[in-house]
């Protein structure tokens, strides 16, 4: 390959989007647009002639290197174009709160984690890791969440009692609300501790 073709190949390979001939021309001050087109033709012909697994495709006014369609089935079957999805930190933390505090409402989850939980709850539900297990008696009768069967399956646990450090962490995750006794009494007063 000519030096210009090499440079264009590297640029097309690493760019996050298809590149136009005009954009590619900015790579090398000495290269005219015509030179760029010649080099692109050279790359295309090389890929075809040498029977590469990839091809140069012109699309939507730009150029991109794509794998040939003939290999698509095999690659899709192997499924390594995507990494095994892992839960995000936010999802894991929300899941942890639910696992150790269930049944638990959104408000309590948000109180413990200090951030809103709407989106995370939805995605955990979509993944089948948590489910709605009831409604609270509190005002507005909010939904209560618990872990679903898939959760135990993924962790390889028989039941929730198998969760590590269950007792310790259930206590640790209690929201720090005021402990109230006899709060209905008008004369009750609040005493700040520590």
């Amino acid at each position, binding site marked *: 390959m000519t030096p210009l073709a090499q440079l264009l190949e590297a640029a097309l390979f690493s760019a996050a989007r298809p590149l136009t001939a005009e954009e590619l021309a900015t790579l090398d001050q000495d290269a005219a647009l015509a030179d760029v087109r010649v080099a692109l033709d050279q790359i295309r012909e090389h890929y075809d002639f040498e029977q590469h697994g990839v091809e140069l495709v012109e699309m939507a006014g730009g150029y991109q290197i794509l794998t040939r369609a003939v290999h698509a089935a095999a690659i899709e079957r192997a499924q390594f174009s995507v990494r095994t999805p892992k839960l995000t930190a936010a999802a894991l933390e929300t899941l942890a709160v639910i696992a150790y505090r269930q049944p638990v409402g959104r408000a309590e989850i948000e109180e413990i984690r200090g951030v809103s939980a709407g989106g995370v709850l939805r995605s955990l539900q979509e993944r089948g890791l948590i489910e709605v297990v009831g409604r609270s008696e509190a005002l507005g009768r909010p939904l209560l969440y618990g872990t679903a069967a898939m959760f135990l399956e993924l962790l390889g646990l028989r039941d929730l009692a198998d969760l590590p450090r269950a007792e310790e962490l259930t206590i640790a*995750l209690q929201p720090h609300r005021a402990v109230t006794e006899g709060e209905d*009494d008008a004369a009750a007063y609040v005493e700040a501790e520590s």
Partner: protein
Amino acid sequence: MTLPEAPTTALGAGPGFVVHLDAYSGPLDLLLHLLREERIEIAEIPIARIAHQFLQAIHELGLNQAADYLDMASRLVRLKVQMLLPRRSEDDGWEDPRAELVRRLLEYQQIREIAVWMGRTAERRAEQHARGYLPAPPELPPPPLTLEALDLLQAVDRVVAGIPTPVLHRVVARPLDVEGATRRIEELLGQREQFGWLEALGPRPTIVDVLSTLLALLELAKRGAIRLAQPSPFSPMVIARDTARPAA
């Protein structure tokens, strides 16, 4: 690469430091720098002088991450004192108090050297780009999700660590003791014709005592057992036996 390269500005050269604390990745880094400036071997570290320079440096450099630096400063000062303790020259059993610090500095210097190597290697690697443009993947069943108990536990630790230290409030029921206040007032009435409101409260009254006493007084006045009077605006209330009617 922001490598822990030796900052070029002179430290310990009197006032006029130009370096920032961010130039050092920790107190050990700063110590190494001071030693390098003085071209001193780590094992020969002159504690007194270095302790002085270290204190001067962290004073000049500001308080970013100060706890770690102050911790080192106090160690140095302690070492300085230990070095000053008299010892006999023929004392073979003498252990150099600097040994631990020297060990840490040597160990840290190794880590620094590896870090520099890693920085350069990562820099070289960053010059090679991976494929950028990835067309939307075809609709495929998502690969199986992975979840590890350890990840979950770690998440719990993060959550627990994120919970702010709570201000605990204990709410205690303190019902009003109107009966007790009434008894106390009646006792006083038995002894005297008239007395001040503050006396009726008893010693060291709580807010509950105040409320209880007030309610008791109002109740007694309503029953006609006492008369309440205020001699002048804002002066304490005076409580007197209502002689027109016998106390109930």
